């Protein structure tokens, strides 16, 4: 398969995702609305009672927005996009029509990944634009992040949302069910992960929790705001690679071997 075909297949997968209006709207709402609420509510509180409530923006606002976009609501959007990309063809019943073309099933699976990432990144970038705007617009007297920190923050958001999106593509391709993928991954992300991370009895085995490994790459201190475990950089990279490798392998295997 040459680069032209690969690009066209990715373009086709992007087209499918773009035209899934419901999923796109929900993904945007999940990723962006909390940021708007964060900045607007805090700005209102600050303006009504400046002595009790600090400014909405500045480095504090930036930190909270990064946490929302990279660790909580951005990943929810990533799960929706990834599940649609991974299971959409099968759910619509068109997977067999793509297999009939004779194109390799692994190629069909692979083209879903860049498509999902590009669609997710467009949402992440929009969220990051809102983050920067809120950070500076409502900074008032607070210090603002440096340019370097802004770049690192962008890198972290793209990494966190991207990794979870790819995991969702793999999981969606494995289950071939959007509902099952969304339920399982959101349950894992919002409930199981924080719960397991808080059980100190489990010790170093908690290193394998994806969100805890992702926190390691955050340029802002998340600490008491959701990070329970500290780990070395090499361990964090290994955990990310492990999650990506396992779910990509499972998704590719299922796509290659299942009856279409």
């Amino acid at each position: 398969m040459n680069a032209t075909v690969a690009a066209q297949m990715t373009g086709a997968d992007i087209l499918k995702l773009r035209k899934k209006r419901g999923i796109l709207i929900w993904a945007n709402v999940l990723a962006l609305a909390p940021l708007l609420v964060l900045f607007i509510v805090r700005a209102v509180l600050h303006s009504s009672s400046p002595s009790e409530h600090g400014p909405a923006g500045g480095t504090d606002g930036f930190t909270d927005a990064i946490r929302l976009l990279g660790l909580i609501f951005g990943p929810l959007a990533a799960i929706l996009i990834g599940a649609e990309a991974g299971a959409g063809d099968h759910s619509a019943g068109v997977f067999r029509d793509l297999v009939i073309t004779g194109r390799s099933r692994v190629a069909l699976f692979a083209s879903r990944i860049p498509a999902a990432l590009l669609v997710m990144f467009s949402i992440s970038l929009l969220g990051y634009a809102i983050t920067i705007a809120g950070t500076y617009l409502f900074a008032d007297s607070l210090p603002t992040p440096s340019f370097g920190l802004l770049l690192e923050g962008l890198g972290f958001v793209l990494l966190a949302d991207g990794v979870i999106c790819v995991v969702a593509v793999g999981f969606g391709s494995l289950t071939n069910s959007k509902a099952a993928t969304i339920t399982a991954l959101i349950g894992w992300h919002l409930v199981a992960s924080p719960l397991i991370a808080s059980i100190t009895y489990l010790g170093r085995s908690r290193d394998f929790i994806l969100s805890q490994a992702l926190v390691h790459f955050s340029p802002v201190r998340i600490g008491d705001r959701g990070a329970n475990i500290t780990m070395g950089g090499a361990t964090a990279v290994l955990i990310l690679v492990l999650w990506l490798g396992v779910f990509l392998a499972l998704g590719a295997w299922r796509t290659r071997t299942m009856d279409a």
Partner: protein
Amino acid sequence: MTSSVDAAGPAIQTSGLTKRFGERAAIDSVDLQVPRGSAFGFLGPNGAGKTTMIRMLLGLTHASSGSMSVLGRPVPAQRAAALARVGAIVEEPRFHPQLSGRENLRIVAAVRGPETHARIDPALQRVGLSDRAEEKVKKYSLGMRQRLGVARCLLADPLLLILDEPTNGLDPGGIQEFREMIRAMVDQEGRTVFISSHLLDEVEKICDHAAIVDRGKIITQGAIAELAEGSTQHELIVGTDDMGRALEVVDSCPQAKQARAVEGNLHVVLDVGADNTAAECSAAINSALVEAGLAVFRLEPVRQSLEQRFLEVTSRLSDTPAEEVVA
């Protein structure tokens, strides 16, 4: 994707092809040959294994044993090359409902390769969907989806089309239109069309060749005319000036197995065997009637239909209670 295919030999060939689901054989040692440039009917009752056979040919599911080739290429070993010039609709055609007809074709064209995009407009035109191509597929009727399914097949510029129950859900006008389109593809464009169906009439009207399948086994295959002629029952219509006497005469003829009056004529089932051909039996009955002083003004062999042949060879019918057969 390569489009190199073997130009000679049958369009589809299988040998000992078997597909098992546990202990049950959905396809059982099937040897099939589909000649090129023909419309081939794969005829069988529901559950006979038709769709399973198609799914194996297209690499949608693996065979348990046996071998198969499509357009001269072994499948699954050279699946990509084999399917490069194959278009197929398996069961009902499915699409992304949120996309337009044209966008759905663009998806498949992207997967097939860059040269395929140029075929989108001609394919839409061919199936009469040019003016509805920008509408979302969820607004399409079943007939329009069937036509879009055919357009999707045409993107491959197919040497072989494999269509699974293609007229399901079509109204009589749509069925007629579909028949004409398939015949044109075979007669004018030299394509091979493989149609699975449980509708005898449909296969008889569209196809040149057919195979009858039941419970995963090929019962018989060949040209439609040969299949129909292969019926073991030979019937003769006799018109005379005295039906009552004619019935008595025919009943006493050893060449007549059974006779009954139908709408002013006698329908005689001939006792054809190793010693008597159908023509000899007919001549003997004619002689007996004439010798009895009856005026014979009609003597016509009944043309065997594929339906009669089908009913004879499919074992299912004999297992079915009589009231279901009548229904």
